[in-house]
């Protein structure tokens, strides 16, 4: 078992008191598996992903990833986990504007202390980025920027990728191509993938699908 989420709850302060976002959510995923999380806006999909990625802390419950309870880790250890074992792909790409495409792609792998030049080269080629390596993110289209974000995550060789609406800012055609490439590379690397999406079509391409509604999973 790579990830075991048990009875996870999270709420936020709202104008009328605490607003529950997740209530007793549990899910499991094995190494190399893919899982789609669907749900309406505000159902808690992104919150769940942030908790699994160690970006946020749950009110209660357990997240055991690769044998470690993420909820019990401090800020520093959670940061180390993200550097070494978890890759996150965001809807807004979150590239570093001051670094070139090539530097962005290598960035997380280098943070993790991995030599990744050959991986970067092959993954960039697979994603059609070879011609863009010297450019800066602002010089790329949205689709190209998301490919760079995917390449950055894959080159770091994480055990699990969390993708939060990765094609939400892309047109349908580009979204399809980008997802195909992501799926193909994930399969090839044997990396687990949790995909948060609104799109039933994208969700259907994952091995497992779970639906979140009002903070509860089904």
């Amino acid at each position: 078992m790579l990830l075991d989420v048990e009875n996870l709850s999270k709420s936020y302060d709202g104008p009328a008191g605490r607003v529950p976002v997740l209530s007793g959510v549990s899910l499991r995923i094995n190494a190399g598996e893919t899982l789609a999380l669907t749900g309406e806006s505000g159902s808690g999909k992104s919150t769940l992903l942030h908790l699994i990625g160690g970006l946020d802390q749950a009110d209660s419950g357990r997240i055991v990833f690769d044998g470690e309870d993420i909820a019990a880790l401090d800020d520093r250890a959670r940061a180390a986990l993200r550097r070494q074992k978890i890759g996150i792909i965001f809807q807004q790409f979150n590239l570093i504007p001051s670094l070139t495409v090539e530097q962005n792609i290598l960035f997380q792998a280098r943070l993790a202390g991995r030599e990744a030049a050959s991986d970067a080269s092959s993954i960039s080629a697979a994603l059609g980025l070879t011609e863009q390596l010297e450019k800066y993110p602002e010089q790329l289209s949205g689709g190209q920027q998301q490919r760079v974000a995917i390449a950055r995550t894959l080159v770091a060789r994480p055990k699990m990728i969390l993708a939060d609406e990765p094609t939400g800012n892309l047109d349908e055609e580009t979204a399809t191509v980008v997802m195909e490439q992501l799926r193909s590379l994930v399969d090839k690397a044997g990396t687990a993938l949790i995909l948060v999406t609104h799109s039933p079509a994208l969700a259907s391409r994952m091995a497992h699908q779970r639906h979140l509604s009002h903070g509860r999973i089904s």
Partner: protein
Amino acid sequence: MIGVTAAALWSYWRRNPLQLLTMIAGLALATALWSGVQALNAEARASYAAAAAVVGEGRYDQLLPRVGDRIAQDSFVALRRAGWPVGPVLEGRLDLPEGEVLLLGIDPLTMPAGTGAAAQAATVPFARFLSGDVVLAHPDDAASLASVVSADVIPNADITQGTALADIGLAQTLLQKPKQLSRLVVAANLPLRLPPISDVAPDLILQPAQAGSDTAQLTDSFHLNLTAFGILSFAVGIFIVYGAVGLAFEQRRAMVRALRTMGLSMRFLMTMLIAEIGLISLFSGLIGVVLGYVLAASLLPDVAATLRGLYGAQVAGTLQLHPSWWLSSLGIALLGGAAAAASAVWRMSRLPLRTGRDPQVWAMQTARGWRVQSVVAVLLLIVAAVFVLQGGSLFMGFGAVAALLLGAALGLPPLLAATLRFAEGQAKGAVAQWFWADTRQQLPRLGLSMMALLLAITANIGVSTMVSSFRLTFIDFLDQRLFAEVYVSTETEAQAAAIEALADDGVTALPLLSVETRIGAQRADLYGARVGPVYAENWQFLAQDGIVWPRVAAGEAAIINEQLARRADLWPGDKIAITADLALPVAGVVGDYGNPIGQIIIGDDIFQTLHPTAKPNQFGVLGGGADVLTQRLQSELGLAPAQMIDQTALKATSLAVFERTFTVTAALNLLTLAVAGAAILLSLLTMASMRVPQLAAVWALGITRQQLGRLELARAAVLAALTLVLALPLGLMLAYLLLSVINVEAFGWQLPMFLFPTDYAVLGLVSVIAALLAALWPAVRLARTAPARFLQVFSNEA
């Protein structure tokens, strides 16, 4: 429509109070430093003008002695008889229990009616003033003056502090100068067919109106230095405002675009934005005026002491709030706001209706503009070099300084960018690589504060090098000039003779003889020196023609100081006219630091021939050490301790005057550095919210918030250190310009330049610490940023 639009535009400042604070603080600080310095200058000049107005200086022609400082009363009588409408003036210092007062004696019957003295004399009945029974004085001096004169002292607030006014007869008695006058004021409307002055009074020379008062001329260079500081500080403040306004306008592009799509014209929006800048500038200006007043009031005592010590100029110790001053300060705040906002307004006016760009893109575009900036910087540095090579005037000197500083400031961001790019290329780890790249990306915004820091450090290095070089040279000069062990003031001719008689008893007593004189239209001091081995052993010449002292002793040559040499262009070998009938070759030129007045030294025999009435009442005495001499002079000659000053005390007094000047300089130095520190702090705080998305991405990839905070501190330190590397040579160039170009033009002497590596190291450390302190709060805030703040960046859900 105006109200709704104003509310919409204002909502931006409401949501970004820090940016508003930055702008107000920058403009207020700039205005404060500018207006503070202007207030100091205005106050001092008002004091000179008030003193000068008493005798109509500047407004009326005056007759002055061609040689020496006294006019015989007979010359006045001869001129009146010949039909010349002249009024006599006698001026001199009168000792008071505490300090002294400048006593002006006038004749109200012949004094031109437009002079302040005539108006003030008219405040008491004519007959009473003429009776010689009345002295008018400033209320602050009246009580003290009343204790030393028998006449009635009438307080009069219109009279300048430190000045008193009396009938000429009474003044001659009080100053013990019977039948002597200092100058003659010539009425504005002269009768036709007057005989030439050269026929009636050949010993007098005419100084035309508007030639300015001596005091104003002497102190001009001091005020010029203060003004230069004011301008520099203002420029530093405007850098802050420029950054804040630029960012605010860029971030409001979307709002302006939206308002335009809702039917508001660009012209209307521009008018609203300009009005908004105007109001903020006015508000900041008001704060600046208050701060400027506080600054000026706190520095005025030191400035007044410096002016009094250096030039004998009396400046009132309290600051007046002149309307012209605060109005001009508000004007300069508006001008500064307009200058800082001009380019942002222009760019906004060209905003297309349908495209959008975020601030980061603006930053990138600004970086592209650096190429142009680099070219302008190089051109300015060339202009500076041309000004230095051409030289020849104070304008050229200050022009060179301005071009050098502006050129270097404009060249700083491109230079920093190139250095950071190099460092990025050398970086090994991912964090290091991101650090350098990210630092380079922040340059368009941080560059402005770094330019401010560069100017501040440069000014510090330049001015402190000048001041310390001055100090070192001055101490050497004092050691050279204050060769006597004890300086004695005698009260009677018997005491003077007794001191001269000590020479037979193993003691050297050198009389210090001097009179005021004029070389052309310039005031100068003529000294008579009893030449002996002491002078030859202690004095060093900047330039000399063969053997000096023996020729001076024989009455065959004169020594002049550097000021006179430069002003009159007289150098060893040239002849100087001591009187109308006597011209002597210049044998040597001596350095005479801190003295703005020309000086001529001749042998005491020839001096006595020219001025037989001048008796020595001061002596430099050597032999046996200061303590032994003091005791001997007290026991054998009955001198009072107050009549003797040992060399150490005199040196300390002289140095104290200069320390006052340094205090003013150091305070302004510190303030400039503080403003630069504020620029960094405000830039970092302003940038903090803009940088959240970039930092969130890095944080999500596994760099902790604490690490980000530490890197923020490191960024400030690195940029400050790099700026320092450029500021050091730049500061030394500034020092060179101040010492070798501006000093020569302003003061009339050249100073050797010394280097002070320890001082520079301390200044460097202080600058880096200032940058670190400025970055500390933003760094702590970053390290404590709640993860939720970063998570907002990734949130796709409502």
